[in-house]
């Protein structure tokens, strides 16, 4: 039953992804193609966060920090030290994964959502570093002159060219996620997000899987960061601040936590959101806040829940990851 579901997602994804290829041809101008690139980058970010939240049941409030580490490490290495953007990206992804392990190892051992608390502090530290290490990062004005990616002397700098490259990378990430969910680890994750105790007693190495999942999703966020920084050739600290992390959690929930298609919708919402919220003016922001409340009130399983047939909706209600153990459970 579950396998059939995943097979269906694979076929649907393959078809959908093939159709996406004609997007640059249909887009009326480069600006729209550029929005498409941002949608792809957001999809990596949100699909990986959804993997952690929706399937692993862990809340991270520093997804934007790993996105930023990816962008800044690769950006600084290539802009200031002349390292090849490819090597810089590789280094950025590996460092981000190592840092995630450092955060995950002490916190994921604990019951409850200490990861959320630790990552909140971590994002704050990373934000301060982006702003204050002026010599390297350019401080509050941002990191400029980041080179574009090149492949055998063929520059991947235009919107359309970069769209195809981002299409390829994002496709690989999504296929990785699909494979992971269909693997032993994927089944274990679904078990441990329902009940860690039950999973543990069935022999699932809960702690090891949680750390691996956190490191993997942080590395995926760093991949998105590398794409981002070598596409717009610039990085600004506020793109990666704590509020960005919070908004990622929000849009994943809006799209539908723990659903395969949720992040695809969420990425659409997130394309315009950071600009809207950082400029923060006008009636649109009020409208966004109110509609966020309304959607969560009336469709707690998110926008993707609306797309599913009614029967399937009843069959598999997405679980709500608990932010904290209930008080009653904590009392002896």
């Amino acid at each position, binding site marked *: 039953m579950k396998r059939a579901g995943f097979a269906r997602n694979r076929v649907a994804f393959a078809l959908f992804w093939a159709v996406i290829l004609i997007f640059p041809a249909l887009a009326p101008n480069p600006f729209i193609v550029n929005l498409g690139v941002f949608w792809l980058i957001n999809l990596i970010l949100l699909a990986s966060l959804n993997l952690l939240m929706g399937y692993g049941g862990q809340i991270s409030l520093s997804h934007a920090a790993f996105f930023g580490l990816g962008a800044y490490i690769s950006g600084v290495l290539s802009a200031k030290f002349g390292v090849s953007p490819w090597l810089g990206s590789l280094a950025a992804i590996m460092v981000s994964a190592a840092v995630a392990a450092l955060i995950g190892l002490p916190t994921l051992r604990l019951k409850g959502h200490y990861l959320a*608390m630790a990552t909140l502090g971590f994002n*704050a530290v990373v934000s301060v570093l982006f702003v204050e290490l002026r010599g390297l990062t350019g401080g509050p004005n941002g990191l400029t002159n980041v080179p574009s990616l090149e492949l055998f002397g063929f520059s991947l700098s235009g919107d359309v060219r970069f769209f195809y490259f981002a299409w390829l990378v994002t496709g690989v990430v999504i296929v990785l996620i699909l494979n992971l969910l269909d693997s032993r680890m994927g089944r274990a994750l679904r078990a441990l997000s329902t009940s860690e105790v039950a999973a543990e007693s069935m022999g699932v190495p809960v702690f090891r899987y949680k750390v691996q999942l956190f490191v993997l999703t942080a590395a995926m966020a760093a991949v998105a960061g590398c794409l981002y920084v070598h596409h717009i050739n610039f990085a600004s600290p506020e793109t990666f601040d704590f*509020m960005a992390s919070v908004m990622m959690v929000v849009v994943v929930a809006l799209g539908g936590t723990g659903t395969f298609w949720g992040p695809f919708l969420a990425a659409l919402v997130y394309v315009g959101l950071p600009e809207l919220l950082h400029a923060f003016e006008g*009636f649109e922001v009020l409208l966004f806040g109110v509609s966020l*409340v309304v959607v969560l009130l009336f469709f707690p399983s998110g926008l993707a829940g609306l797309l599913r047939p009614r029967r399937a909706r009843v069959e598999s209600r997405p679980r709500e990851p608990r*932010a904290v153990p209930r*008080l009653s459970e*904590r009392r002896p």
Partner: protein
Amino acid sequence: MDYSSVILQLALSGLATGGIYALVALGFNIVFKSTDAINFAQGEWVMAGGMIAAFLYQAAGLPLWSVVPLGALAVVALGAASERLAVHPLSSPGPMLITLITIGVAIATKAAIMLTLGKAPAGLPAFTGSTPVHIGGAAIPPQALWVLLTMAAVMVASHFFFERTLLGKAMRAAAADREAAALVGINVGRMVTRAFMIAAGVGALAGIVVTPITMTSFNAGTFLGFKGFSAAMLGGLGNPYGALVGGLVLGLLESMSAGLISSAYKDAVAFVVLLFILFVRPDGLLGRAAVSRV
């Protein structure tokens, strides 16, 4: 100034900032206790308190002593309305869902304040003049003493409220066990509304007393909320005395690292310490040591 008076000066200003963090943290803890959710609107209520009081004082010309309770009451009403409209209608209220909803409430509150009261920073005059008070070798503005006084008064009042009054005990009962509280005739839903109202009022008071020192503007809330939440975590989420300790410790940490290490890195230093405390004592400084390691 010699070294010891520098330390004293830093300690006093750290305590004043910490007093604000403690009040905001208390607001977080009250909502957390009754819903298990992190209330992201808390910081916006702090901002709303300051903005509304400043508006009443400057534009409406009300006397300074009256805008303190009026501003706080307006935000209490805002807290009640937020809970009734956005949280109360939930059919299956889980902590994660409530947390996400409060993010929507926070964005909407911030936007509403910006659209109605404007984008300009607003201020209030200090309650009792601005001649610095000298303590030891250090000088602090009298408003900082008002902050500490307000914090102490609110902490004592909340202790009395939750320990001695029927309503306070009913709220604690509803927080401890919803079903059992409902069985003995407590209206659990109403207790959640009350928790939001008290949290809003405490936050607004913090916003009003700090406005003469720092000024305020529509976008000041996110930062204060973030600091308040960190303080609540530091002390132990859901523990009212933890809010006090967490707030003061965070304030001291920031002021000491700004004064002795580097003001640019004060947040980083404060959060590295916070991460460290979290790793060593996951339930916060005052938390129960009952966290079981898996």
